[in-house]
């Protein structure tokens, strides 16, 4: 330590000197700095009045601050609502058009169907993907249903095999009204050997070649050629797509216990009605129909509805009913 304690050069120091010659000036902080500190202090008070971080209880309520003058109190939920409104406003020009259109008309309009393909993803993921899988790839049964329901939980939606038909209108019908598969159990009707024989020919893709197929009344639902009837939702037994397990064992199980037959071992195939569920709006169901159709397996309508005709039809719902 130095013994030089002089306050040199007229510049006042704290008088504490170390390392021979280092001292502290006793200068005030700069004026701009003090002004900034004062301004910050005032701003803290103002900000606290606007958005108090500590809720103050007044007469049983929490005082939540005065908010930004002119725009009122702030809350996260109102900010979310405002943000959602921005999104809704941006989508309004499409959504408003969708309201008055049939699914077929939406599909025919390139711009609108592109909009649906983009915006339907969330709808599908939230409402459909649990059973049908993300992007309609189907969901393989797991857990406690794995044995009984071996195979898919719900049909794959991006192939071109449709139990009830693959036009956009039928898809729309399926969504709005729901579907319930129906196949009686044959464990009391057919012998084990007959079930074996039928399962083998169905697995081979040639059910009609088996005389039992017509004899035991399978043709009543599946048709004489075994290709099913879309009007009643019976499966096409000749194609490469299997609703349930497509192995001979799996087919045997389906024939033995049926589908939704009431038997404890029966396969379950239920599509709920989204109208009855009341969860989705009309427009949302129409969007889903178009979205599912555009997965790539949709069946074009016999005569694709021209945009003008569809627009006219949507303006006069009565006329549409007659036309159908």
């Amino acid at each position, binding site marked *: 330590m130095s013994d030089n304690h002089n306050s*040199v*050069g*007229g*510049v006042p120091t704290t008088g504490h000197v170390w390392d021979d010659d280092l001292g502290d000036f006793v200068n005030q902080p700069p004026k*701009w700095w003090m002004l900034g500190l004062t301004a910050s202090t005032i701003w803290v008070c103002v900000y606290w009045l606007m958005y108090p971080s500590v809720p103050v209880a007044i007469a049983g309520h929490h005082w939540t601050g005065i908010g930004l003058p002119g725009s009122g109190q702030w809350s996260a939920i109102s900010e979310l609502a405002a943000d959602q409104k921005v999104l809704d406003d941006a989508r309004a020009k499409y959504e408003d058009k969708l309201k008055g259109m049939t699914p077929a008309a939406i599909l025919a309009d390139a711009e609108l169907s592109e909009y649906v393909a983009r915006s339907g993803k969330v709808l599908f993921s939230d409402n459909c993907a649990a059973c049908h899988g993300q*992007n309609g790839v189907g969901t393989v049964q797991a857990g406690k249903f794995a044995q009984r329901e071996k195979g898919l939980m719900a049909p*794959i939606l991006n192939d*071109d095999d449709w139990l009830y038909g693959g036009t956009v209108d039928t898809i729309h019908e399926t969504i709005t009204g729901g579907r319930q598969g129906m196949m009686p159990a044959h464990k009391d009707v057919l012998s084990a050997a007959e079930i074996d024989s039928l399962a083998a020919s169905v697995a081979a893709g040639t059910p009609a070649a088996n005389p039992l197929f017509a004899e035991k009344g399978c043709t009543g639902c599946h048709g004489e050629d075994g290709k099913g009837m879309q009007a009643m939702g019976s499966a096409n037994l000749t194609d490469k*797509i299997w609703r349930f397990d497509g192995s001979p064992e799996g087919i045997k199980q389906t024939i033995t216990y049926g589908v939704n037959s009431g038997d404890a071992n029966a396969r379950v195939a239920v599509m709920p009605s989204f109208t009855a569920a009341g969860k989705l709006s009309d427009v949302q169901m129409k969007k889903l129909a178009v979205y599912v159709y555009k997965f790539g397996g949709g069946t074009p309508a016999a005569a694709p509805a021209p945009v003008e005709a569809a627009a006219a039809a949507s303006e006069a719902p009565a006329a549409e009913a007659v036309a159908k």
Partner: protein
Amino acid sequence: MPPPFSLLNFFRNRDTLRKFFAEEVVQRFPNNNPLDVDKVTTGVSMSELEKTPKAETGNVTGLYTEHEEWVVNMGEKTIHAKRMPGFFRTLKYITESFWLILFLGPYLRWNGKQALMLDVNDRQFHIFGLTILPQDIWMVSLLLLLLAMTLFAVTSVASRVFCGYFCFQTTWVDLFTWIEEKIEGNPNARHKLDAAPMDGAKFGKKALKHALWLLIAILTGISVIIWFEDAFVFWGNLLHFNLSLIEVATLIAFTLGTYFLAGFLREQTCLWLCPYARIQGVMCDSQTLVPTYDEKRGEPRGRIRKGAAAEESKQGDCIDCFQCVQVCPTGVDIRQGQQLGCITCGLCLDACDSIMDKIGRPRGLIRYMTLDEVNGLPEKKLYQHPRTLVYIGILLIALVGIIYGLSHMGNLTLRVAPERQPLFVRMSDGSIQNKYTFKVLNKTAGDVQVKVSAEGGVKGQIIVDGGKPQLIHHGKASAFTVFVKAPEENLMSETTKIQFRVENLDDPNMKAEYDTVFTGPKR
């Protein structure tokens, strides 16, 4: 109570500090009292100081002595630089007029539209017939690289050419001081006017000057804005006071920015604000041409005295006329050597040359010289300056990239994204279907219809609705979905290469390709 500490006050109070340091030095080095240096500041010239070195360089006293001599320009005094005609003055006028493009460029029309427009709102740049969309933005980054490398290369060869001849700060300050000179007179008159009390005449001159400055500032603001939106529409909106908030804010920001930076901050911007001034400093080396005072020829400097012929022979060519300092827009004394205040504009060369002509000495006492030349080292050729060559190399690479980009832009761009979930779908007839999202960008002025075709891929593949024309809107990317179906037995591996092509139905030459894969089941 000392005044609050600030950088400005530090320098204002440097007399106090100097005294403080000096006393400290007296205590420590009693034999070498820097307080004697005060004599130096009272009118003894630099040359005398050198003859009788009071302070040895390298020790602490030398440091303080240099501090004594070194004037730090903190903007306390406005610099009123003299204008002298000459080669570099003319050159500066020519290079500065480059900025006329800023003012006039936006009024050029091309096919009924603004020829030069950086349409940020619609995300397109228009340069005459050329439209640059966000997809081509990599060329803009190459352009920035090109400009940076040009700056580096030029700076390494000839020092701060940008600062001295092209910089907007230099240009606008030059324009503002030109107006000042026309209204308030030469530098002497201006100093007198500044010191004079305010009266009617002074107020009139000052008001006129500031009005003109503001007018130029507003014009600058407008000219900047109309590079980003239609010039005539903007003028219309401006004259009807119908501007958007962002336009008003931009206009005010550029107007006030120009007014204060060029009118008031002036050389302070170059000294204390501008990063490029400092960056360019490190680009210079001993092979860089910089305006240099030829010390060997000039020193010892001194005034010419009549009839003192004997003494004259000992004197250098510098007659200490201070013309070089008076013309300097940043107020530096070039005779102290290259320094950060020097924007290398060459105006001191003109001033010195005109004096040399008058006293009948050769020109070039101050001239563009390299440090090697000053030190008497052999001059190197450009190819012996590898750093410059590296700059030029990168510059050329960027240039080639831009030329390639501009010539290969094409009118149609195709991107194909294969669906990732599911990778493929088995159809009811057993075939495998893949889904692709096509994004087609149409850079032409009109909408076009395209058809999709494919090369390679799987034998027997079908593009579902491949012949169906797809409408592609102009100026943006349109998306559509394409399905390709192929029999499973023809699949040779899990993935098969496939090339898609979109082709304008009306003009088969307008087409674009994209390579991707067709995916099937694992085998």
